[in-house]
């Protein structure tokens, strides 16, 4: 049991517990707050996996922007969220075994897979910001991801304009 394993187990337990609270808590705003904890846990997992950029980007994008937007939406639609009764629809009893079944199936599939390497590969490009430099080059090189990169930009523009069109009421 190394320190890293202990950290991972603690973080995984916290984020899974928080994720459970997201889907079960009665008050919607609490769901959103628990989601923030889950997302933070996932950011730490990225950190353990040596993906520092993704860890920080996760905090900036998910906690700094998406979660705030969620809290905002909850505040705006609060009048509809005032009932503190059950937040489940009538099919929740189907959903629970279904997701448990899926989890069981996934674990079974993982058990039958042979591709686990026994050793964590050393990062060849670890040297300080070398990894980020490679990522940057990959994102804009023609034999890399330049097309998805530009498409992501266009997608976000489309999302913004669509969202504004939908949410903006002209008086």
């Amino acid at each position, binding site marked *: 049991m190394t320190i890293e394993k202990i950290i991972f187990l603690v973080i995984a337990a916290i984020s899974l517990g928080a994720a459970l609270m997201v889907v079960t808590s009665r008050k919607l705003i609490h769901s959103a707050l628990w989601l923030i904890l889950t997302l933070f846990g996932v950011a730490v997992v990225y*950190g*353990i996996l040596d993906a520092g950029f993704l860890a920080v980007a996760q905090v900036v994008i998910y906690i700094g*922007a998406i979660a705030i937007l969620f809290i905002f939406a909850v505040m705006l639609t609060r009048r509809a969220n005032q009932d503190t009764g059950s937040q489940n629809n009538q099919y929740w009893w189907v959903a629970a075994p279904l997701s448990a079944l899926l989890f069981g199936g996934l674990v079974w599939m993982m058990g039958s897979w042979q591709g686990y390497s026994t050793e964590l590969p050393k990062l060849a490009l670890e040297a300080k910001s070398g990894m980020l430099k490679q990522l940057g080059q990959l994102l*804009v090189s023609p034999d890399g991801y330049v097309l998805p990169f530009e498409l992501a930009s266009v997608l976000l523009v489309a999302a913004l304009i669509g969202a504004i069109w939908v949410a903006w*009421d002209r008086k």
Partner: protein
Amino acid sequence: MSSDWLYIGLFLLIVAIFPGAPILIAGWLAPRKPNPLKSQTYECGIETVGDSWVQFKAQYYIFALTFLIFDVEIVFLFPWAIAFNQLTLFGVLSGVLFIFVLFAELLAAWRKGVLEWI
């Protein structure tokens, strides 16, 4: 996990304790004489009318939305900026195109009158 990140993790722990401990100590030092008048909602002495949840304009939401999109796009630019010296001219120009799309987006929102505060 490099030792730089270890330091950040330790800092996270300490930073939670530092403001938390004085608050707890003050809670122990301070007097506690609650009464129902004291714990009423503070509105300059006037009694609260209705729910504290008045409805707010959706304009705030639009700004949060615009921020979300911009934030995501700018985060994408950081790896590009770091690799700048190694990039070819094509790489630089595709980054510039990316920013230009953002710029066009801002202009579109401006034209739509979204950025106007009414």
